[in-house]
């Protein structure tokens, strides 16, 4: 009992210590950056000081432009991502359940997957014009394959023993699907969703830079280059990083806790 208590105590102390060290590192790095920026060795327009970046960020948030840019970007990501889920999830399940669907879709998916989504941007611009459609479609393309392939392998990886056990207990097709296959495949599906979001997040920034559309975080960064506004760029980078971090940790983390971990699926999936 005391051993356990002291172990947790030392673990939490360890954590506090490494947080402390991380803080020191970041302070030192910030100080180095600040020293270089203030030294005047590089032009101030290219290497703005940190207080300048912070005040720019604060001003952009206060007058609402940053929020509007972020809202546009989020709208594109979430629209494209939900499109990818709506297409990828059922298709992945169909692929895993019916060999014929698998035989048709898998070769196409393996041929399209190695093409980076950004390579399609110029083609899509020609087909759909500049603007929202291109960004949403690029996000869709980027997010589709992780979703599709993870769902597919997740459904295939469902332990056949569970299927037979449920069948022996008299489960019909419908409850077999909802009570065994979907929970069984869920760790893979959630991993797929996570990867899809990461891909989508990269794709949307690139698509916004190339298919300029007046609003969006990627567009702000690219537009700021024209006016040498490095402070706006760094501020937008911080916002992009923060949103990505929040999604990765909070949204997907809590999604995982609410579903997979609660059902006790994670251990079986990883063993």
């Amino acid at each position, binding site marked *: 009992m005391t051993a356990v208590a002291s172990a947790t105590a030392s673990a939490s102390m360890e954590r506090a210590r490494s947080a402390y060290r991380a803080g020191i*590192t970041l302070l030192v790095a910030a100080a180095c950056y600040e020293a270089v920026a203030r030294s005047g060795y590089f032009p101030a327009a290219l290497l703005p000081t940190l207080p300048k970046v912070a005040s720019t960020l604060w001003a952009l948030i206060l007058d609402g432009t940053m929020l509007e840019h972020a809202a546009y970007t989020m709208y594109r990501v979430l629209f494209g991502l939900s499109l990818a889920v709506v297409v990828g999830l059922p298709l992945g399940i169909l692929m895993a359940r019916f060999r014929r669907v698998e035989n048709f879709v898998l070769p*196409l998916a393996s041929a399209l997957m190695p093409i980076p989504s950004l390579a399609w941007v*110029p*083609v899509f611009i020609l087909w759909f014009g500049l603007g929202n459609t291109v960004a949403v479609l690029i996000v869709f393309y980027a997010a589709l394959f992780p979703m599709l392939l993870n769902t597919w392998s997740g459904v295939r*990886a469902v332990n056949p023993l569970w299927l037979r056990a449920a069948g022996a207990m008299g489960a019909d097709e419908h409850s077999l699907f909802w009570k065994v296959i979907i929970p069984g495949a869920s760790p893979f599906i959630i*991993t797929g969703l996570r990867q899809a979001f990461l891909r989508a997040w*990269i794709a949307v920034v*690139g698509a916004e830079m*190339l298919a300029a559309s007046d609003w969006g975080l990627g567009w702000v960064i690219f537009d700021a280059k024209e006016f040498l506004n490095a402070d706006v760029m760094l501020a937008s980078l911080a916002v992009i990083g923060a949103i*990505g971090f929040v999604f990765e940790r909070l949204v997907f983390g809590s999604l995982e806790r609410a579903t997979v971990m609660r059902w006790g699926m994670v251990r079986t999936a990883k063993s």
Partner: protein
Amino acid sequence: MSDLAPTASPDVLAAGAAARGESRLRIVARNAFPFLVVGLIWEITAHIGVFPRRLFPPLEEVAATFVRLTAAGILPHHVLDTLLRLAAGFALAAIVGVAIGIAMGRSRRAEDIFLPLVSIGAPIPGIAYAPLFLLWFGLGNRTAILLVAFVSAFPIIFNTWTGVKAVKEIWVRSAQAMGADNRRLFHHVILPGALPYILTGLRLGLAQAWRILVGVEMLAAVSWGLGWMIFGAREFLNTDVMLAGVAVIGAIGLALEKLVFQRLENYTVVRWGMMT
């Protein structure tokens, strides 16, 4: 990162098909069938003229463009420049990334210094740094290579670090008990033990580098390169050039994965019995 998560691989199917004892011809036919269907639909759409021909060229036009550009030496030049850029950026990332990752895995102090920096830099999509790099390093090659290196270094660092930390303590201790000095410990225990992770990191890094490179070439106004070729063709509505370029990009992406990494893995990790 995602190295420990369950991931999907289309190779599973090929293995399954082989196990089922299907003839090779049947497998080829089955894999070709979907492409025939899609190609046919494409051809019909293109010839009916629903969309302007300039924007939606039939496949034979794309193929003819591909042959013409290859014969003129334009396409090979673009490909060569892109590959050189990829190799330079990736080599830089591999050297720096593995070095930092090993340092982080072995030394507490290096871990304290690098981990916060890497954790802050990693979640920002690499392409978002592109304008900043353009501003700092100017248009052209240097920016493209540095950005590719910067972006692909993150997965390499993370996986190398995880790999070095995952080397079993008991291997290290038994090697030490058998009198291995630091250098031999590193060469014979830590490096082989961490190699599966390092290779995963390199693989993820290369995939990342490839995805970013195409985008960067569009933004950085390099004079040659596949990304630039596609983006430049937009100005002249040369959809056939674009589609030929996209096909080449896909083929290179596939070749990188199949020819470079699977080989490397077979020669090292599988051979040493670290992974099956």
